[in-house]
């Protein structure tokens, strides 16, 4: 789950992290009210993706009339597929410096990493490439959390290449100890895989304020954060954070299927993530283009197979389907029954190519043959055949 900026900031504020005063506006009139109350404000599109500034989704306005005009413009926007349903109107800050503080997963170290840099306001990945010496990292002990001395080391290291801030280092470091401790608490309590403040603004009066907020919760931990899910679902502005998502992927989630929508026209179904990825690779190797990735998982029954086939065929681009099954705990006969049921119930006339091996392979093959579906000898032959069959009439 990805929280919107204002939702992330609510969590930051609850943890004692300073954020600019702000109001959510769903209409230009609400933005006017926010401007009357707060004065000079930034009007910011609430969408669950980055790059909205570059897309024109952020405006700084001095008057209520400008707030109305800019809010109306931004609320009519669609940023990379995500319709803007609300804007966050917050007090402009008097900025002395833009820093960066973020927590994410470091796969190589298999720990969280806390990243601090005095070069805020741009993508941290870009800083990592252009000026890696300006980035400082800390991998906190997963049980003890980051200790103050470690955070001081992090802060001193991150400020070492910022001569413009030299006079302010002592105060900054002590403020960062508190802030980093709190941000780490937010990250761990919310199972965040990304928890980022960029920019972290140093104001002219010496405050550290979170001028933006990014929070993404680990999907595997969604069950522990039903309150967040409910809030996202309830808040029409959030629309579960997925408003701009691919409609086929939204449908697959409803059906409980692991599915990724792609650009091609050959439907792909497999069991197991690696095998399904390999199914796509085989299609491509033989000159075809996969339309999707659909992993039916282990031990799928006939109904799940039927559901999967129906899902893949919802995409009208699909010209045929390659079903690739290794029978371990998944049984060939169950898969065959699901395929046949789907074909008969859904009146599928597009080509289906099935490669099946392992548990109950013979039974499955016999069922398919009896139903007029000739199983392929192996995965390579299956890939060749589906590419050939779907090539007919392709331009």
């Amino acid at each position, binding site marked *: 789950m990805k929280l919107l900026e204002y939702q992330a900031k609510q969590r930051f504020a609850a943890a004692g992290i300073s954020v600019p005063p702000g109001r959510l506006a769903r209409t230009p009139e609400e933005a006017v009210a926010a401007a009357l109350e707060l004065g000079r404000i930034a009007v910011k599109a609430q969408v669950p993706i980055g790059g909205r500034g570059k897309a024109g989704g952020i405006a700084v306005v001095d008057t209520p009339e400008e707030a109305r005009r800019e809010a109306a413009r931004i609320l009519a926007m669609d940023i990379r597929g995500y319709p803007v349903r609300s804007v966050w109107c917050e007090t402009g800050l008097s900025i002395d410096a833009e820093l960066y503080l973020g927590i994410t*997963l470091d*796969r*190589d170290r*298999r*720990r*969280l990493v806390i990243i601090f840099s005095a070069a805020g306001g741009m993508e941290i*990945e870009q800083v990592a490439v252009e000026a890696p010496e300006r980035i400082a990292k800390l991998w906190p*002990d*997963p*049980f003890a959390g980051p200790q103050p001395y470690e955070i001081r080391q992090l802060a001193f290291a991150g400020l070492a290449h910022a001569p413009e801030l030299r006079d302010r280092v002592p105060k900054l470091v002590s403020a960062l100890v508190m802030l980093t401790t709190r941000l780490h608490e937010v990250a*761990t309590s919310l*199972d965040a*895989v990304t928890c980022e403040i960029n920019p972290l603004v140093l104001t002219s009066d010496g405050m550290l304020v979170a001028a933006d907020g990014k929070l993404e919760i*680990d*999907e*595997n*931990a969604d*069950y*522990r954060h039903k309150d967040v899910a409910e809030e996202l679902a309830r808040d029409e502005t959030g629309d579960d954070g997925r408003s701009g998502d691919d409609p086929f992927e939204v449908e697959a989630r409803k059906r409980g299927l*692991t599915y*990724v929508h*792609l650009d091609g026209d050959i439907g792909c179904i*497999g*069991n*197991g*993530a*690696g*095998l*399904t*990825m*390999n199914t*796509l*690779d*085989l*299609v*491509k*190797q033989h000159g075809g283009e*996969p339309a999707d*990735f659909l*992993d039916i998982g*282990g031990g799928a029954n006939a109904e799940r197979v039927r559901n999967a086939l129906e899902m893949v065929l919802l995409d009208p681009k699909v010209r045929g389907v390659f079903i690739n099954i*290794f*029978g*371990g*705990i998944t049984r060939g006969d169950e898969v065959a029954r699901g395929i046949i049921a789907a074909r008969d119930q859904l009146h599928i006339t597009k080509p289906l190519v099935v490669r099946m*091996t*392992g*548990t109950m392979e013979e039974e499955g093959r016999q069922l398919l043959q009896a139903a007029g579906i000739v199983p392929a000898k*192996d*995965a*390579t032959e299956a890939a060749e055949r589906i590419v050939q069959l779907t090539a007919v009439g392709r331009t």
Partner: protein
Amino acid sequence: MSVLVDRNSRVVIQGITGREGSFHTAQMRAFGTNIVAGVSPGKGGGDQDGVPIFDTVADAVAASGADVSGIFVPPAFAADAIMESAASGIELTVCITELIPVHDMIRAREFVIRTGHQLLGANCPGIVTPGQCKVGIIPNHINTPGPVGIVGRSGTLTYEVIQGLGQAGMGQSTSVGIGGDPVMGLSFPDVLQRFADDPETRAVVLIGEIGGSDEETAAAWVRDTGFDKPVIAFISGRTAPPGKRMGHAGAIISGNTGSAQSKLDALSAVGAEIADTIEDVVRLTAARLGTHSR
């Protein structure tokens, strides 16, 4: 010979009374695994098809001398089960459970390391030493003893390779599934080291996939240690688009890291044979072993 598990392994199953746990316990026993105990809190004193059940892993270890654990408990309880296992002195904990929150796994992994024991997984198919011991869910009938060590992130692709090699007359010393999560226990170098130390393992098949940089790390390890057994590498997800999670939590290309090409390049640079298909894996392995494909 074998790595990590063999006929002397004494196995306890955590979550033995659950749907998955009970089904696979029967499968593992049919394979010949010496399952000495099960754990199901609150059901201690009972039995599962003759396997005594205990309330805690500590009780199970005390009564049965178990030294390997297989975990089949639901994701919300799995990290705790891992820590309980390692804290009770279990030397190798194999966690099959999928969908464990990553923050839980970071802590559980660290916990196991501090006990000095080993963790395999989670989100993995487990481990099998043909003819001796299986802990996990790899199908029984495909395994035959032989000279090939297999280590892979993907379950079903590992099965494909085991079956393909078997049909060509090449068995395995041990097949190890390290799992599809971004934070896991044993990783490629840990398993490769064991294959290096095992005289019966004459070639290694490494099955990687997009996401992270574990395959690149494996390549660096091969280079740095001078690992001299043939490595046949297969990487799935060559056609996967960036930013999309392909089934496994760890199978995602993020920014500049995790592409199949980067992994293929790294492995190829240290002398690994690159297989484009499962058939290639079989052909290349046979060539390196000097045996004829049947």
